[in-house]
């Protein structure tokens, strides 16, 4: 099925794009991550210009997180106060990201920066997740009892920040600067990479902010929903690289895939799921690292002036 993408300016196999969206949808249903980290690189491998890929992937993540936010808010799984502070940070981050995007684009280094960021981010997150997943699996494999659960508390750096606020739903009394800065960093990544940043936010909220576990996923989805909306708008206004046809195809696949992912998630063991996600993330990081090191097929690139 040939589909012409008006902004990307080329014809693609629409079925392939829907399947790709479906794959990321399954992941988002399985693991509760947006799946943008998979969409952007795969679109680039397929020949979509990197800017169009990042911009349209951000639009897809908005759609993928809507139903999640609704579901979590029904069971009081969203800390709106914390979420709104992080959205504020995310908007600032998206604007900083837009400036960085422009700057790197004019220097001709946007693609290599996107790739390096992916390798660093996926590599470190993947390694962390792998260690945690193996740690969780080992007792059950060796027949030992589970290690004692670490007491929840925020990082000492967070405690040293001034002006504390009370975040009742998260069970925290910390400075709003900490979630603001966290939101800002993720916002920059969203603008540059087209990722929601869920798999960066969730561990950071748990281990750096020390938020209570039952609001972490909902609040992270809440922040992603708004920040990807702002990112889509920023891309529409600055890079003009949001391809509606591409985004619609990705969305179609991902909203359907998310439902299958949820079904699978109900049946599979969470420890094995996390191990699988960690392996997948590490695999992509290695593939991209390999891509940076070997001589690319195309030495020359053309950009209009």
């Amino acid at each position: 099925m040939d589909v012409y993408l008006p902004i990307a300016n080329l014809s693609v196999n629409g079925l392939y794009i829907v399947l790709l969206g479906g794959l990321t949808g399954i992941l988002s249903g399985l693991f509760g991550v947006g799946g943008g980290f998979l969409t952007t690189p795969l679109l680039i491998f397929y020949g979509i210009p990197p800017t169009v890929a990042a911009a349209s992937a951000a639009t897809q993540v908005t759609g993928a997180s809507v139903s999640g936010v609704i579901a979590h808010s029904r069971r009081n799984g969203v800390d709106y106060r914390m979420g709104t502070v992080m959205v504020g940070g995310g908007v600032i981050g998206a604007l900083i990201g837009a400036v960085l995007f422009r700057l790197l684009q004019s220097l001709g280094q946007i693609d290599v920066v996107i790739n390096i960021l992916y390798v660093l981010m996926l590599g470190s997150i993947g390694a962390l997740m792998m260690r945690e997943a193996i740690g969780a699996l080992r007792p059950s494999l060796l027949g030992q009892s589970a290690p004692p659960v670490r007491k929840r508390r925020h990082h000492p750096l967070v405690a040293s920040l001034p002006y504390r606020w009370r975040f009742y739903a998260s069970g925290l009394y910390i400075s709003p600067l900490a979630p603001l800065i966290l939101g800002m960093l993720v916002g920059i990544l969203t603008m540059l990479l087209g990722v929601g940043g869920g798999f960066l936010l969730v561990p950071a909220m748990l281990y750096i902010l020390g938020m209570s576990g039952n609001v972490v996923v909902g609040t992270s989805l809440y922040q992603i929903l708004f920040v990807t909306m702002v990112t889509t708008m920023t891309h529409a206004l600055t890079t003009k690289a949001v391809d509606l046809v591409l985004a619609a195809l990705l969305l179609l696949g991902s909203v359907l895939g998310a439902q299958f992912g949820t079904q699978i998630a109900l049946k599979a063991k969470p420890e094995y799921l996390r191990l699988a996600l960690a392996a997948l993330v590490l695999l992509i990081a290695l593939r991209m690292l390999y891509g940076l090191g070997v001589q690319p097929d195309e030495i020359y690139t053309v950009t209009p002036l």
Partner: protein
Amino acid sequence: MRPGRAAALLLACVAPLLMAQAEPILVPEVSQSRIEVRQGFTGANLLLYGAVIAPPGSRDKYDIVVVLKGPTEAVRIREKDRIAGIWMNAAATDFRSAPSFFAVASSRPVREIVDERTAAIYELGTDFIQLSPSGQIDPEEQARFAKGLVELRRRQGLYQEDPKGVRISAGVLYQARINLPSNVTTGRYTAETFAIARGRVLASATAQIEVEKVGLEGSVVAAAQRWSFVYGLGAIALSLAMGWVAGRLFARG
């Protein structure tokens, strides 16, 4: 006016044209003067055909070369190099007039038809595209970048050379087929046809082809460029609606 006299008058007008010039008459045609890029566009196959009529008394056998050129644009070519183990963009150079599409079809390899100088003057090959480099870089480096650009666009199907792309029948009728891939830029394309004999270009003719995005695709591009804010809102609304509808549908089922 009686028919006999009319014919005589016509002959009287045309005769000096035919006799005075030893130049052939070239009558080009294009299968489509407008190519519409709409949903499902996977490229277009353009047929350029026509006739070349030799002047009386001439024994020339003509070769035909057709050059189809897309709108030119100013571009920056970047060259990747290995820096600290990573392949990244290093050197760059600017060209002020790189055609977005360039195809040459000829009845024989251009090298056998004309000498290099003539080929360069009429841009009869991807090696002879006039790119108008800007800035001060040494010619050797410019040639390397130009070669890189041609090679890249050749792989994308945007620059083509077909030394057997023109078929001439009975020494009079010619036809050439040129494939436009789906990734072509929109705008005005010019098709130049050259009739060549004895190493000299004896006649040339130009035709225009308009490549346009129409229908939904045209409006999407226009909206993204002109009404960016509304377009952005539309993209957000689309994603929210699709996510919400899917959530509702599956929650019930």
